[in-house]
């Protein structure tokens, strides 16, 4: 793992099937929209030893949603939870997620949403590029990801937070992490599970 700059990390990892799914999909997605990946896959990307059915991402609207859907179909993907392109877009604007997987499969899938909360916008504006051998992935602020995982609070979320924190703590911005921990009201969980 090489920290190339404050916003770029290089990982010389052997890509697993989930990584390849993500890399293939973001190659399409980034042609149509600004995106950021958050939550569980971020921990998995850095080495957490678990699989995930879904990869969560925020997208800052699409330049041309019908063109995006057309390219998805051309490249062998489908939207799992909606057949109609218009309805799929309406779901997004209604604050719901659309799920995209390889045609005929439902996992792994990308769960895409439009940003709604300040934390969603923050993730989109403070992306970290993780470079792998066959491409790059843009993930949200690691400090926010850790604090937000503590906020979500399930066993799996706390484990993800602990993994990222223990792996990257020397590289994290302590002030930023402290700010998010305070804002999200997770100081007790931070002290109990991460320190």
């Amino acid at each position, binding site marked *: 793992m090489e920290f190339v700059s404050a916003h770029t990390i290089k990982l010389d*990892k052997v890509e*697993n099937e989930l990584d390849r799914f993500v890399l293939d999909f973001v190659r399409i997605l980034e042609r149509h929209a600004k995106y950021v990946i958050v939550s569980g896959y971020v921990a998995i990307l850095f*080495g957490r*030893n678990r699989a995930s059915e879904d990869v969560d991402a925020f997208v800052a609207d699409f330049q041309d949603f019908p063109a995006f859907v057309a390219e998805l179909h051309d490249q062998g993907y489908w939207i799992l939870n909606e057949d109609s392109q218009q309805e799929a877009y309406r779901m997004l604007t209604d604050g719901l997620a659309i*799920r995209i997987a390889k045609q005929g499969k439902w996992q*792994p899938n990308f769960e895409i949403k439009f940003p709604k909360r300040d934390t969603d916008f923050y993730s989109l504006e403070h992306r970290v590029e993780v470079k792998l051998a066959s491409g790059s992935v843009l993930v949200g602020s690691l400090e926010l990801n850790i604090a937000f995982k503590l906020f979500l609070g399930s*066993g799996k979320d706390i484990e993800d937070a602990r993994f990222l924190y223990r792996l990257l703590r020397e590289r994290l911005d302590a002030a930023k992490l402290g700010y998010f921990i305070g804002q999200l009201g997770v100081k007790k969980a931070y002290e109990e*599970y991460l320190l």
Partner: protein
Amino acid sequence: MKGLKIDLAELRKDQERNFAERLKFIDSWVDYIKVHSDKEWSEQQRMLIDSQIANARQSRITKEQYLEMKGERLAKRRA
């Protein structure tokens, strides 16, 4: 069901013990990653994740059942 005795306190203790063990495992895995090359740890991760994905794909659930498990379905937007 008659006569079933559940010791909730004992179950909770087990739950806490399991969670503490998982956290310990995470710490040892982090230590392993820190002292091994990306290629080494990620090959182990690849084997685990690829097999979990392969297993999940073998399940015979339908797309509709999958979405229902996720609490979504097409009905979510039409409700």
